[in-house]
């Protein structure tokens, strides 16, 4: 299949970027990233600088790959990362526009590569359970209802790719933050710190310059792990309880 690619090229954060057009000969069994490999191989053969994009595991779990394909983070398929998107979902002669994640908190580094360390800092602000190595009791000492563990898992499935931020018209990281707040808050082990955790994480999220949630649901629709919007409601609840309900004056 012959494709026209329009790819965002930007040398570095300081420079201005633009879409550039390329012709690529692809095959329907290729993954989207393998199609980009073909493009890059041909660019290198022409002694040009290949398109920089992030990718690693190529099996949909590391969260590295991040590109907006025809306006949709990770492309048109539901619950699919870019690396798992296969070319059989495109047609011969298609024009595909590939852009980087866009959000103020994700500055562009080069081409399609952006800096997502803001997400790391949200986790560092409180996305953990404060237990040192060796302090744990027997793993079966606390029984956890099967459904409750499953609920925590559904939130914990987040791969930290940032598609929620990229999809959100407000550049909000609520879904990412909520997924961690709900994962840990749902487990009895993490319930203990929930109040301080949710406040710290929301504060950090605000500080990083992410936008505010207006409940458009764009994040949920483009999340490759299909993390639910209900997590945001749960986080709102936890935050309100922590801010208004706790005795702490901060």
């Amino acid at each position, binding site marked *: 299949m012959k494709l026209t690619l*329009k790819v965002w090229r930007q040398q570095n954060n300081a420079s201005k970027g633009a*879409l550039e057009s390329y012709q690529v000969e692809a095959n329907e069994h290729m993954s989207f990233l393998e199609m980009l490999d073909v493009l890059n191989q041909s660019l290198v053969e022409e002694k040009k600088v290949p398109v920089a994009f992030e990718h690693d595991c190529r099996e949909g779990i590391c969260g590295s790959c991040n590109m*907006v394909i*025809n*306006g*949709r983070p990770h492309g048109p398929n539901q619950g699919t990362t870019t690396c798992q998107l296969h070319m059989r979902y495109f047609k011969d002669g298609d024009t595909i*526009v590939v*852009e980087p994640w*866009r*959000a*103020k*908190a994700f500055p562009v580094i080069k081409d399609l590569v952006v800096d997502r360390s803001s997400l790391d800092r949200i986790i560092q602000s409180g996305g953990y359970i404060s237990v040192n190595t060796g302090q744990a009791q027997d793993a079966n000492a606390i029984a956890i209802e099967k459904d409750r563990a499953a609920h925590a898992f559904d939130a914990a499935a987040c791969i930290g790719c940032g598609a929620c931020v990229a*999809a*959100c*018209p*407000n*550049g*909000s990281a*609520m879904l990412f933050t909520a997924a961690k707040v709900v994962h840990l808050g749902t487990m009895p082990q993490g319930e203990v710190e929930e109040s301080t955790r949710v406040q710290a994480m*929301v*504060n950090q*999220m*605000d500080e990083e*310059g*992410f*936008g*505010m*949630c*207006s*409940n*458009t*649901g*764009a994040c949920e*629709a*483009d999340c490759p792990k299909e993390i639910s*919007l*209900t997590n*945001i*409601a*749960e*986080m*709102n*609840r*936890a*935050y*309100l309880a922590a*801010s*208004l309900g706790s005795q*702490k*004056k*901060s």
Partner: protein
Amino acid sequence: MSWFSNFLTSSIGRKLIMSLTGLFLISFLIIHLIGNLQLFYDDGGQAFNIYAAFMTSNPLIKFVSIGLYFFILLHTVQGLILWSKNKAAKGSKYAVSNTKTTSFASRNMALLGTFVLAFLFIHMGDFWFKMKFGGSDALNMVTYPGHETAVKDLYEKVAYSFSNPLLVLAYLVGLLALAFHLMHGFQSAFQSLGINHKKYTPLIQMIGLAFSIIVPLAYAIIPIFFFFNR
């Protein structure tokens, strides 16, 4: 106070303000509609005019209405702050825009809200301002049997205004914007409050949808009714 201001200026605090003020305004829509339905009494406007006079003179109502103005202002200002902050947080837009995964209403709350606000100005300038501050040159005074104090004949003003097709059109546009604003806003208010439940949310969404169609439609009938019947 620092914890309180921290809370109110946090992203979730701001959302809480939007949600609560929005819900208050929604409740106002119902009250206001019930009052306005008196326009349909076939009594030459008696019930409506007495009601209007009561609403502008009762001290308790006056107090509540100050609250209402404040909440409208708060909802507006906060909404504009959210809009500008969110626009800045997004930075640049995509070359290909995606409209598949989100509703028109949810993407355009600020725009729809601005339409509603503009409509509010027209509406209040036409009726509320004249009712409140207009002299007898603006509105005639009438008396009714059993209600000897003269009241302003707002009914006549309403009927007169809605004979103007441009104004009727402006109302319809304003109410359409309101309908869309509510379609997203109603259920969104609950989500912001943290009320999202597998069992109850579908119900909230259904009520929200019904509300955002029925209430603006009921309001819309008024100008249409007057336009065609008078």
